[in-house]
């Protein structure tokens, strides 16, 4: 990294321009948009990160050391952050971005963005992940370079797998000559983005403020263009802390959202032809609806064709009580289908094949011979090598590397052009049968829920039903993944379900719920989190964050006192090896002592109820907790539950 000799500034010049610079500084803080206006004098003369440290330390004539800077580079970085419209910064404090934090708080007034104190970088990113799925846009995370980013890495991987945008800024001091001895060396790195480059969409290390502005806007655009994913910028410590030249006016480029990639017109036309002529089509939606528009588009297509929809709940794709919602009959419909149409389906192969996890792993298709398979997936536009989240390769007849939500309107119009009166009559008949089958399946599901209804530990169906009874009349948002809620609750709004972790990395749920609740707060929604206990223990500090920032969030613990998935895996191995089948709880459970989550919550300022093991006590406890949430605070109900 060569230093820019032209950009060092003399002491006299610095002092001469200081007043003007400060005036401009105030103006840009009050009106970030003004900071976006190009300045011909400054735009081409950006200061480099290394050059920043060449700013004079002493006035040769007076020998007075300059100890203050009225206009640090970090102020301009905050201008950039404000221009991008971030409401919050989610961060655990770190010295490598100390100037940025100070600028957010003092220069930026701690408003838009407001600094949200997190207790772990994994929580910061997990919260950002949840926020993005409610708001449909990223939030900004600050993290210490090296150590902070290592903490954050698992959460970044989850967001990457879940195709969720997160905007991450890490601090780092690249210039070894200016690092403080000791810790700062351990916290510095040659290539800040390298650690997470396999599972971020883009990263950069800007070496000037102009470079920072352009890369920040570029990063935002890349993160929000499907497939949406995390991006990372390195904010150099010298660039943050060094003073801007009085005449320095970096330009903040205009952020224009990229139109999402739409499916090829020929492929859309052929898909429409196959769809309208299919006898038993099935639509499978996973991460299809990025926004409310996606939900509406899928409803329109399904109703036009009277085709069943299986919602895999990667997002809130389809109303759960719509007559065409056929989640309960998923496998039977797929087995009978002559056309399977997948929309952002993460694991298409696994959806149409049965895989046996026995000593000899085997698989077989569950589809009938000759069934056509079509997929639209933005993931095809960004597939990496190292991490294998792309799943097994499916046999497809049409594959569109495109965004499903963006493609659906054109596909629906193409279908409309092909539908005849005869076809419409046929669709109506199909729709009637599907509606009847759905009601019958729902009856079976309710009967299934009734088993162990009064059991202690409390059945997971009972937990979901008890919560639903008290939230159904409110404007609610389920900010966690829960299979019984998906079956029993009536979902019809996009923000009512946000899907899961993506990478199945434990430790996502609690932070994502808090982040989603922060996004829901301004809309007055009741955020509901059905929280696995093992996941909570990865990041209990988010309870404190929720209390500190008055985040209205109802958390109901699914406390089965285990990492239950792992209990079952260990059991499988013991059975396979024909020994020790009674020892599967060693190393996999959270007992002895049992964890008191209500006490944990109270210790951090959160309203706590429980532990509750008698189902009769559950309803009143939830009611008290909702009352607390209504006052604008978080509340937790600890429920001792059946395993699943």
């Amino acid at each position, binding site marked *: 990294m060569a230093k820019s000799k032209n950009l060092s500034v003399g002491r006299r010049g610095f002092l001469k321009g200081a007043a003007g610079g400060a005036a401009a500084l105030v103006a840009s803080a009050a009106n970030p948009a003004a900071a976006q206006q190009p300045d011909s004098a400054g735009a081409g003369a950006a200061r480099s990160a290394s050059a920043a440290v060449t700013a004079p330390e002493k006035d040769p004539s007076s020998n007075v050391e300059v100890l203050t800077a009225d206009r640090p580079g970090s102020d301009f970085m905050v201008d950039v952050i404000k221009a991008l419209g971030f409401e919050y910064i989610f961060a655990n404090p770190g010295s490598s971005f100390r100037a940025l934090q100070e600028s957010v708080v003092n220069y930026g007034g701690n408003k838009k963005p407001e600094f949200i104190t997190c207790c772990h970088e994994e929580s910061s990113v997990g919260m950002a992940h949840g926020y993005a799925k409610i708001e449909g846009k990223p939030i900004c995370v600050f993290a210490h370079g090296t150590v902070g980013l290592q903490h954050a890495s698992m959460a970044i991987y989850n967001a990457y797998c879940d195709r969720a945008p997160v905007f991450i800024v890490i601090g780092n001091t690249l210039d070894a000559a200016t690092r403080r001895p000791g810790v700062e060396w351990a916290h510095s790195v040659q290539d800040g983005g390298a650690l997470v480059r396999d599972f971020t969409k883009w990263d950069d290390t800007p070496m000037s403020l102009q470079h920072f502005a352009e890369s920040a806007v570029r990063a935002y655009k890349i993160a929000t263009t499907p497939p949406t994913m995390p991006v990372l910028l390195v904010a150099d410590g010298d660039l943050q802390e060094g003073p801007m030249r009085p005449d320095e006016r970096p330009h903040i480029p205009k952020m224009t959202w990229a139109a999402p990639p739409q499916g090829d017109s020929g492929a859309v036309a052929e898909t429409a032809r196959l769809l309208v002529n299919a006898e038993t089509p099935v639509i499978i939606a*996973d991460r299809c609806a990025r926004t409310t528009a996606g939900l509406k588009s899928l409803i329109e297509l399904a109703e036009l064709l009277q085709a069943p929809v*299986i919602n*895999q*709940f*990667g997002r809130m794709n389809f109303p759960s009580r719509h007559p065409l919602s056929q*989640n*309960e*009959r*998923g*496998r*039977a419909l*797929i087995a009978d289908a002559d056309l399977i149409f997948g929309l952002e389906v*993460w*694991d298409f192969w*696994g*959806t149409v094949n049965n895989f*046996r996890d*026995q000593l000899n792993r085997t698989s077989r298709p569950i589809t009938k011979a000759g069934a056509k398979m079509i997929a639209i997936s933005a993931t095809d536009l960004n597939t990496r090598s190292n991490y294998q989240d792309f799943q097994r390769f499916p046999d497809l007849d049409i594959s569109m590397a495109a965004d499903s939500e963006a493609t659906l309107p054109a596909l629906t119009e193409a279908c409309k052009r092909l539908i005849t009166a005869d076809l419409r009559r046929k669709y109506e008949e199909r729709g009637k049968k599907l509606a009847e089958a759905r009601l019958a399946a729902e*009856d079976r599901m*309710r*009967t*299934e*829920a*009734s*088993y*162990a*209804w009064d*059991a202690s*530990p409390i*059945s*997971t169906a*009972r937990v979901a*039903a*008890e919560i*639903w*009874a008290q939230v*159904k009349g409110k404007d609610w948002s389920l900010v966690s993944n829960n*299979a*019984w809620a*998906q*079956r*029993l609750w009536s979902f019809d709004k996009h923000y009512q379900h946000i*899907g*899961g972790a993506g990478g199945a990395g434990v430790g996502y749920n609690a932070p994502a719920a808090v982040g989603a609740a922060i996004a829901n707060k301004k809309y007055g929604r009741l955020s509901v989190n059905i929280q696995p206990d093992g996941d909570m223990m990865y990041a209990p500090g988010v309870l404190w964050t929720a209390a500190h920032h008055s985040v209205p969030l109802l958390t109901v613990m699914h406390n089965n006192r285990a990492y*239950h998935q792992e*209990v*079952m895996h260990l*059991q*499988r191995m*013991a*059975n*396979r090896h*024909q*020994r020790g*089948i*009674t020892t*599967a709880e060693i190393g996999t459970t959270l007992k002895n002592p049992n964890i008191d989550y209500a006490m944990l919550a109270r210790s951090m300022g959160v309203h706590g109820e429980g532990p509750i093991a008698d189902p009769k006590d559950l309803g009143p406890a939830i009611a008290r907790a909702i009352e607390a949430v209504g006052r604008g605070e978080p509340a937790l109900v600890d429920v001792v539950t*059946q*395993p*699943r």
Partner: protein
Amino acid sequence: MRTLLTIVVFTTGLLGQNQGAASAPAGNAQNGRKLFENDGCYQCHGREAQGGLGTGPRLGPKPIPFAAVQKYIRQPTGQMPPYTAKVVSDKDLADIYAFLQSVPAPPPAKSIPLLNN
């Protein structure tokens, strides 16, 4: 996200009408409940044998015939890990079966207000 699909896989064909109950060997239901816990059956099927979402079907009340249970757990054709006679004796299995037979029927779903919202 495949949970709802896999549920159906496991719930197919494993619930019966108790046709084979009469031919089941005598067993101790109380001991069977303990074995159901200790041997890990509860992990996938729930502590009351009610079944688990995406993990295992309901086993009681009214389990499928004993012979079918015995055949399946020794040589499962689905996802269930095998329970050979080396780790679960026929006697223990009889006790577990007695427990499954003892599971009480739930109230009708239509009589539970919370399930009709």
